[in-house]
């Protein structure tokens, strides 16, 4: 039997977890090395998958089918196409850097890395499964560890305890996934198969698609942070430990958008035509609402959290514009936002670790003490504000151009949202990093080696894909072409 490299991506964190189970808890260095090594292996294999994908051929590659429960037509079938490739790569990047920036986690380190790797297995699985059962299994697998990650290693805020954040996030996401599961059951009973490839070749009746789409849309919308279902996201991310919010905001929210493309739009294109204008309006609200609320926040993590909501709005807007530019922009934004949010959360985590506060009002002039962190923060903030030569620019440009073709008015409203983003980020940079240095923060240490490695890498990617977007766009284009064909090639 041939082994798909996708199986290897899934197995490397799993093997890491398995080894970690047998390592005594107080041997923290060994635990971290093993966690880092298995994350690095997963990352390497995700690069390998990206490089060895045959771009001249396109379609779904690296297929692997393992029978599992044939009576219910469940197979563990894996495969990757142009949409899932960048997302697999993103997951590899974020889990690797996530382990790096968690190098100073000392409290119950063993469990921490087990849960973190567990989450990455779920995410990798979602982006590579071709069977709805396993898609959903991995989907929930990715959501679940977050509860304990927030509950044990998270930090309570003034307004919310971490238990509240953990419960809110978990229950809201599980309610969303209940909708997804309902959709899967309806689809399964109608089509009699769970295989994504077979399903995407089927054509369902108009009425059926009309009903199916909103169910999936609500389900995935919760995870994608669609307004007004987004409320878990800022609170959950603000209370979560650094690596968990990196992975969650960076990658997990993309699972929602990915599901929307891969399942909702793919299986009910006619339903998408009917319902996506509604999603477009909600997405525009996302962009504006997230940006406005972020402007009013004092807590750094809340600022990043709400900016995620705002940026996910752009992804949703790109998807709902239903054209080539919008789709490619959306997938590109998923990747770009994933890297950028991971960087921002890592940086906020470092600031919090050194200064023991995340409040903008209490911080000031940090650039003197931590120039390295400042430089990276500036770059990530510029990406977030979509300045040219960063990957954020390419993404937002494509999304807005795509949206302009379908919804000119909404496009203009969304552009104002981007302007506000620039506003609150500049305000944040000025208050926290520049301005008069506060005495007690003069002695704080800059990023350590592991953190520097992670941050340099993330910043490098932001610039790399900003200057050479075609590195990703080739792959994305291959992925979205079949979708666009189904939609009637607009």
């Amino acid at each position: 039997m041939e082994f798909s490299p996708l199986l290897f991506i899934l197995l490397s964190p799993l093997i890491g977890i398995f080894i970690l189970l047998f390592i005594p808890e107080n041997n923290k260095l060994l635990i971290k090395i093993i966690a880092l090594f298995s994350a690095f292996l997963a990352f390497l294999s995700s690069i390998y998958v990206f490089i060895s994908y045959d771009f001249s051929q396109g379609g779904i590659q690296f297929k692997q089918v393992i029978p599992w429960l044939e009576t219910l037509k469940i197979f563990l079938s894996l495969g990757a196409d142009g949409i899932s490739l960048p997302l697999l790569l993103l997951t590899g990047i974020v889990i690797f850097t996530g382990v790096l920036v968690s190098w100073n986690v000392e409290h119950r380190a063993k469990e921490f890395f087990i849960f973190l790797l567990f989450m990455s297995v779920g995410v990798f699985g979602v982006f590579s499964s071709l069977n709805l059962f396993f898609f959903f299994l991995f989907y929930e697998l990715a959501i679940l560890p977050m509860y304990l990650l927030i509950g044990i290693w998270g930090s309570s805020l003034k307004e919310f305890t971490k238990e509240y954040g953990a419960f809110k996030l978990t229950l809201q996401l599980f309610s969303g996934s209940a909708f997804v599961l309902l959709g899967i059951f309806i689809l399964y009973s109608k089509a009699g198969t769970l295989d994504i490839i077979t399903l995407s070749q089927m054509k369902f009746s108009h009425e059926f698609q009309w009903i199916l789409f909103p169910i999936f849309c609500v389900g995935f919308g919760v995870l994608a942070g669609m307004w007004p279902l987004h409320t878990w996201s800022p609170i959950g991310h603000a209370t979560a430990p650094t690596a968990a919010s990196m992975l969650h905001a960076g990658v997990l929210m993309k699972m929602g958008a990915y599901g929307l493309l891969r399942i909702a739009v793919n299986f009910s294109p006619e339903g998408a035509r009917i319902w996506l204008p509604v999603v477009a309006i909600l997405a525009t609200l996302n962009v504006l609402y997230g940006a406005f609320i972020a402007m009013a926040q004092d807590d750094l993590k809340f600022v990043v959290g709400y900016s995620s909501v705002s940026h996910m709005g752009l992804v949703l807007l790109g998807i709902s514009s239903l054209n080539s530019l919008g789709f490619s922009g959306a997938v590109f934004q998923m990747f770009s936002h994933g890297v950028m949010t991971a960087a921002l959360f890592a940086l906020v985590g470092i600031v919090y670790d050194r200064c023991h506060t995340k409040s903008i009002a209490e911080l000031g002039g940090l650039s003197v003490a931590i120039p390295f962190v400042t430089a990276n923060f500036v770059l990530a903030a510029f990406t977030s504000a979509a300045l040219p030569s960063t990957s954020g620019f390419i993404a937002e440009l494509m999304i807005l151009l795509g949206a302009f073709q379908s919804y000119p008015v909404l496009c203009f409203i969304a552009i104002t949202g981007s302007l506000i983003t620039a506003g609150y980020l500049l305000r944040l940079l000025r208050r926290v990093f520049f301005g008069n240095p506060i005495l007690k923060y003069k002695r704080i240490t800059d990023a350590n080696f592991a953190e520097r490695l992670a941050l340099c890498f993330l910043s490098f990617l932001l610039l790399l894909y900003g200057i050479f977007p075609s590195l990703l766009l080739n792959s994305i284009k291959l992925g979205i072409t079949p979708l666009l064909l189904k939609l009637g090639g607009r």
Partner: protein
Amino acid sequence: MYTYIFSPEGILLILGFLILIIYIFRRRWSRFLLITGALALLLAAFSSFLQFSLPPQGDVLLVDPFSNFFEIFFLFASFLTLLLSKEVKESVRGSYIFLILFATLGMMLVASTGELLFIYLNLTLVSLALYALVSSVLEAKSREAGLKFMFLGIFSSLFFLYGLSLLFGQFRTTYLSIIESKLGNFSPHYLFISLVLILVGLGFKIGMVPFHFWIPDTYEGAPTPIAAFLSVASKAVGVTILIRIFIGAFFSIQQDWQFLLALLAIITMTVGNLFALVQTNIKRMLAYSSIAQSGYILIGVLVGSKLGVAGALFYLWCYLFANMAAFFVVAWVEKETTSQEITAYSGLSRRSPFLAVTLTVALLSLAGVPPFAGFVGKFYVFSAAAFEGQYLLVAFALANTVISLYYYLQVVKEMFIVPSNREVKIKSSFLFNFLLLLQLVGILMLGLYPFPWAKLAEGAIVSLF
């Protein structure tokens, strides 16, 4: 041949009486009696397992894959119960072992018959043994639990008997197979009354709302191993009869009873889950959760398709492992801390990682979170319902799984997040750990490699359709 096929029941009957007689004359031999009891259960399970390939045979007593499937289920449940009792109780008397063996015998006979009077007779045997077991501890609470259980139990079994006699009045026979063949000649409205009466009796056993009131009080007062036994085996007895009567005999008039059962399933899940939300006593919480679980099992039965009934059978195994494992941990913590409150579990992940992890896995499996057994079970049952077009039912069930997650996670929060006020390690004995590990492996096996079990469940229901 005829004597051979009833060897599992025979083993229990003979060894059960032997244990009772030895107990009367040699009270000190409790260890020997316990080993004999456990061996009897294992031996019976083994001989039942050997019969799996035999073709269905028998008259009043039937031997078919369905009965074998449940015989092994009951034997395994009571094996775990017996050994758990040994681990957490100060002394296990011979009478206690005898009662467990005879309750199991009754359950096995219920599972392997298609004759109404015999079902009733054996159901009474099960009930009598369980009444005594529930009140086997010299505590007021246990007595109260036993008394409540007994009065309500007798009351509901009268309804059941009344339903059966109405059936006899119409069909002039007590054989379900004959009833099934005559079914076309009778008006469904008249039949409906007897089916409802039967449902009252079974609803009590299964823990179906509104016949569930005894469950929380009884579980709370009963010795924890017996509460576990009640929640798993006694519930499964009800499900067995339900499947035999409603699917085996009255399948052709499914549209008449399906709506009622669907309504009851929805109410059962919802009431169970909502009441579980506010419990502070973990045994009461598990009691309400077991009520909710009955609702999910009922879905599989009422759908009535092969997939649905096989799903219900599969789900029962998932439920057995998860619920038993949960009660195992509860029993041990109760023994160590003498508390049944959920707050007693604070910091359990530090005090005993193994217990905490197992309880977490068990609870998440009950909630239906992948990759554990409960998820596959729920997927099985719910997809069967979706295939029959019962989308509303599926939607209700999914909403319920989300509600249930809240109270299961409360316990997880207590164990992993809330720091303990006492950092004393909890040590559990070797046998206990081994049995718990067995169940943990079961939960993971059913969740990660469900194929063999699914195959067994599908083989078991062939003779019904």
